[in-house]
Every structure is written in structure tokens, then in C-alpha cells.
């Protein structure tokens, strides 16, 4: 092994200390920017009474009382419960409330949509422009037949809480029309809350830090390049 092939050790303990200090500074900066991020003033919560209050189906009740507990589309089935005991919900006509997210996939006779009923959809609003962290998303694939699919016009995405639909649908645990996926086949739907665009105030501290560090990085890169040319 020739010396040419190996870089000479430089910096030593001072370099290690400087690097550690830089890492700590980055962590502090990121934590400070997170803590000072401005919140969106837009209210996106769906009224609690529209969600049916506490009248929601769960697995225990279904196992105890059987399919009759669903009372033919009048009680709300949260996606979490449907995924927890899919066999118990199979074939039941239930009420489901959720936000249209992602895509509205128009096909012959209707559209496929993903309806999320998590906190971001119904309570706290989307993250990114504020909002409160409440875990990962939760929702179900829904088939909206013509003309009900016209209710789903704006899907949720960054900065937008999508249309919130209140649907009555039959749970298909292994829907042949979707290659065996778990779906809801809708026969009635209403628009509970139209899409809302979130006001997203600029995080000036973050912009300032990005510009300052960006210029510093650019300066260092140009200096290194000039040194190498020499």
C-alpha cells in the first residue's frame, strides 16, 4: 500500500470535536425550527355531530351481537375496526365517513377513491402546515358508482383537506372486482364537508437558515474547487 493511495490523517481530536459540535448545532437548529414552525389558522375539523358521535361499530359488539348490530347502514364503521375484524364486517351495510385522498380514478360506471377516516381527515387537519401528529393514515378503498362519484371532486393532498363524504356502503372483504381487495361498495353518499385549502404561513426562520447555510455551503464548495485547481 503506497502512501499515495491513503489520505494522510488530518484534524485529529480537534477535527472530531469540531464535527461533533457541528452535529449538535444541526440538531439544535432543527429542533428550534420545528418548535417555531407557524401553524395554519385554517379550521378543517368536521363537526362531531356529523360523525355520529359515539355510535360507532366495533369488533367486540359485532362478535357479541352478530350482523344485526350494523342495523342496515345507520351505524358508522371506522376503518380501524373493519381492518381489525374483516370477516365480521364482510357483507354488512354500514355508514362510513372519510376524506377523499390521493386520486379519483374514473372508470366505466363509477370511480375508485381512497377515503381516510383518520384524525387528519376528520379532526386535526392535514400535517405539514401545522396540525397535530396522530400516527399513520387509516382509510378504505371505496367504489363510488355514477353519479355519486361526482361528489368527489377535490382529493386531499399537501395543503388541501379533500372532500369529506358520508357514505352508506356494503363491506366487501375480498371484492372480486378489485382482485380480492377489501372495499366498500357505495349505494348512497352525501358531501359532508367540501375540500378546504389550508393557509400555509411562510416559515421565515427556516427560509433564513436555508439561505444562510446554503450560501455558506456554496462558498465552501467554490473555495475547495479553486484550491483543487491550484
Amino acid at each position: 500500500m503506497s502512501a499515495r493511495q491513503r489520505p494522510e490523517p488530518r484534524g485529529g481530536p480537534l477535527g472530531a470535536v469540531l464535527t461533533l459540535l457541528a452535529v449538535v448545532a444541526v440538531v439544535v437548529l432543527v429542533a428550534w425550527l420545528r418548535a417555531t414552525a407557524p401553524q395554519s389558522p385554517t379550521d378543517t375539523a368536521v363537526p362531531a355531530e356529523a360523525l355520529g358521535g359515539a355510535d360507532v361499530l366495533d369488533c367486540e359488539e359485532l362478535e357479541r351481537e352478530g350482523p344485526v348490530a350494523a342495523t342496515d347502514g345507520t351505524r358508522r364503521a371506522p376503518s380501524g375496526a373493519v381492518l381489525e375484524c374483516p370477516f365480521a364486517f364482510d357483507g354488512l351495510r354500514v355508514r362510513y365517513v372519510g376524506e377523499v385522498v390521493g386520486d379519483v380514478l374514473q372508470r366505466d360506471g363509477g370511480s375508485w377513491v381512497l377515503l381516510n377516516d383518520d384524525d387528519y381527515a376528520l379532526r386535526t387537519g392535514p400535517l405539514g402546515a401545522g396540525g397535530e401528529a396522530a400516527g399513520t393514515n387509516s382509510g378504505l378503498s371505496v367504489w363510488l358508482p355514477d353519479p355519486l362519484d361526482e361528489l368527489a371532486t377535490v382529493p386531499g393532498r399537501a395543503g388541501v383537506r379533500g372532500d369529506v363524504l358520508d357514505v352508506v356502503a356494503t363491506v366487501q372483504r375480498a371484492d372480486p372486482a378489485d382482485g380480492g381487495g377489501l372495499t366498500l361498495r357505495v349505494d348512497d353518499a352525501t358531501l359532508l364537508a367540501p375540500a378546504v385549502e389550508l393557509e400555509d404561513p411562510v416559515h421565515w426562520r427556516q427560509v433564513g437558515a436555508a439561505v444562510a447555510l446554503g450560501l455558506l455551503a456554496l462558498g465552501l464548495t467554490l473555495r475547495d474547487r479553486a484550491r483543487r485547481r491550484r
Partner: protein
Amino acid sequence: MAVLTHLGPTPRDTAAVVAGLGLVSRWVGLAMLAPALVSLLLGEHRDASALLLGAAVGVLLGALLQRGRPPGRLTWTQAFTLAGGAWAVATGVAAVPLALSGHHATLLQAIVEAMAGLTTTGLVVVDDLDHLGVGMNLWRHLLHAIGAVAALLVVATIRQRGQTFVATSNVAESGDHHVLPRRGRSVRAALGLVVVWTLLGTVVLLPLALLAGATPGRALLHAATLATSAFSTGGFTLTSASAGALHAATVQLVLVVLMIAGATSLVLHRSLWARRIRGVRNELDVRVAGLTGATLLLVVLLGLRRAEVFEGATELVRQGLFTLVAAHTTTGMTPGPGRLLVTGWGEMAPAGIVAAMAIGGMAGSVAGGVGTLRVGILAKGIARDVRRLLLPESALVPADYQQSRRHVLTDRHVRAAATIVLLTLASVFGAAVIELATTSDGDLPEALFHAVSAVSTTGITVGFLDAGNDQVGLVVTGLLMWFGRMEFLAVLAALGMVARYVPGVGGRG
């Protein structure tokens, strides 16, 4: 012990590794500029500033670390340690914009998300993925591509030395342990493979996404992200619906092809590219992958039939085949919500999925897991030992296997393969016990499923980890992904080098 201390990494080794880490930090930072531009163009100002800040941090940290001459040709020690450390440094830099996106409750959550991206695990820990900005989502997928290139780079570099991928990616056969070749050729090989397959996948998936009903812009996004994720055997997707988002069998069929391509070894890619097909079926990797794939598909389909999950054969095969391929290639995409695997698929089918994840893809590919080559070598080793028992003591029992060329199977190969299998098993059980001890809900089967999913870098999520609240679970999951991707020994080498500078531990204090 004194002798061992002197044999450890020298200051020159450390300097080379640190300079290499600087290079990694700088490149990861520069990679953020592309999604930052997308965010700027789409008016996602918060994500744009987060990505620009992350880019600046990467470049600055790189400049700080890379003060020595950049590493040209590395020794095995340096390469090993650099590989282990590179994923850690890249994860730290990559996590900066994620932490500023507002979609992670804690810094730790952002770090684990970055680790899931770079290790091509694809375990989803991000909060509210469905409202994540386009630029930030592209960054998550770019992490998969970077991780795939890095994994193939390690493979391509070792390949040039004529090694066999058994223990921590390789067993030196030539006895040469000095200098690795220059990185230029390896980088081109790794980058070329990932770029060509990803572009090809995007071109094929775009019209299928349009036919599925997506708008042109969304179709392009779906196509690009799905292709990147599938070939890199990652598993991140644009929405929480994973591979079921487009409700299209044709899309899932293309994804199956891309996932298998991602889990195919670099050697095999080269053979197929050069149309040297004749010897391919004799490769141990290919034989084991075919055998385990077919056997486990049968197990999954029988399990689904036994649990009466699907009525029709079409649904049975579509769901079972896609999920098995996603598990065996360690991609981890699912055709529907992952939770259904443990609540609606009975017991036998999930067991088949767990076995597929643990075995993983071919050695020398992007895929994780124990690797089909090691499984084959262990099986051949056991068969050889059984033959030895049946023959007189003086009898010679030769065994060999085909992997690019003919190799004589030695005890060293078997021991190396067994080491990785044992370390994997130990980490899975250890992680499951820790996670069960620190969380109030969840049961052992789910904990084991989660641990195997993480250590094999598969990333199928069954809802066991509560990323926002379970900090211990996050740490364990992050470590599993790191150890799994680096096959344990490289990480231990990197930690060993750090420990060397801790007073009283490494002999320098």
C-alpha cells in the same frame, strides 16, 4: 490483547473512512437539490426550504469531514468500516428535511424514516403520508434509489475482486485482502442498472396509470415512484394505499417484474444482458430462489384457501402471488392494507410470508434478507455432512456449487453463512422481546413479524409499531434495518472503529 490493539484500524484507516463519509454526506446533500426544485416549482415553500437546508447541511458536514485527500483505493478494513458508517451518516443528513417537513412527531421518527429509505426497507413511519408534499415524497423515494445504488456499489466492487457473497456480502477466496479497485467502474455499473430499470419501469407504468384513471401529473408521479420503489426493493409509495392505490392488475404485474429484477443478482443481470442464458439455471442462487419461491407460494396459497379468505382462484393467486413476491424480494409493497395480513389471512399464509421475508433475495442484489445463496450453501453443507455420516470415516466427501463459476464448498463457506443466519435469528428474537417488554399492546407473532420485516429490509407494516409513541420500538426498528442492510459485520466494524477512540475501550485512551 496488546497485539490485537496494534492490529486494529490505524489513524490512516480512520482518515480514509472519515474522508469517505464526507463524500457520502456531500452527495446525499446534493441529491436533495432535485426534490427541492420540484417543491419550489409546485409552491411547497416549507418543503423547499427544508430540502435546501438539508442540502446545505450535507455539503457543510461533508466539507468538514472531507478535509483530507478523498479516498482513492480502499483496503478491506477501510471499505468495511466505510460501508457501515456511510449508511449512518447518510441517514443523519437525509433525516434533516424529513424532520422539518412537519410529518414526524419526533426527530427519532424522521431518522428511522430516512433509515427505512436508505436501507431500501420502506417501513412507513411517516405521519399523514397522504398529505405529504410532492417534493418531500420524491425525496423519500430518492432515498431508495440512493440506497440501491450504494448496495449495488458494494456488490460491484467486491465482484471485481472475484469474491463470493456469503458472509457480510463476501468471502475472500483469493486470499487478497489489500486494495479494492477504483470506484469509477463500480459506480457506473450500479448507477446504470438502477437508472435503466427505473426509467424502463416508469415508461411502462405511465400509460397503465393513465388507463387506471389517474390524471397525467399523478400518473407520472405514480409511475416514477412505483418503479423506483419496486426495483430498489424499497416499498415506499405515494399514498397509504401502497400498491393497491391504482386498483389495476396490470400495474401490479409490472411491479412483480420490477421487484424480481431488483432481487436478481448483478452477476445474473450481466449474464442476461450478454445473453449468456445457458448456465443461469445452474447458479445456486437461481435454483434456491426458484425452489423457495415456488414452495412458499404453495404454502401461502394453501394457507389462504384453508382460511377461506378468497372465493375465486383469480383473487387468490393475484393477492397471494403479489404479496409473496413483495416479501421474497424484500420490497414490502402490499396490494391492500398491511394490517389484513395478520387479521384476515389466517395463520399459515402469514407464516409463509415471514419465511419469504427472512430468506430474501439473491446475494449480490439490492434485496435484503439472509439471501438465497446462503440458504443454498447451508442446505448443501447439511447434505454433505449427512453423506459424511453415511460413509466410512476415511472417505472424502466433496461438494461444490455454481455461482458465476464453480466453487468448492468449504467449512468456511458454511460457517460464514450460518453466522449470518444465527445473527439474524438472534436479532429477531431479541428485538421482539424488547419491543414486547416496552409496549403495552401487541403479541409475539406480530412482534416477530415486525422484527423479521425490519431486519430483512422488507418493510411490510402490520400496525405493530406505534411510531409516534413507541421510542424504544423506533430505536430497535432503526437498528434492525441498519444491521440487516449491512449484514451485521460492517456495522460492528464501524462501531469498533469508533470504540477505538473511546478512552478505556479501544486502547488509545
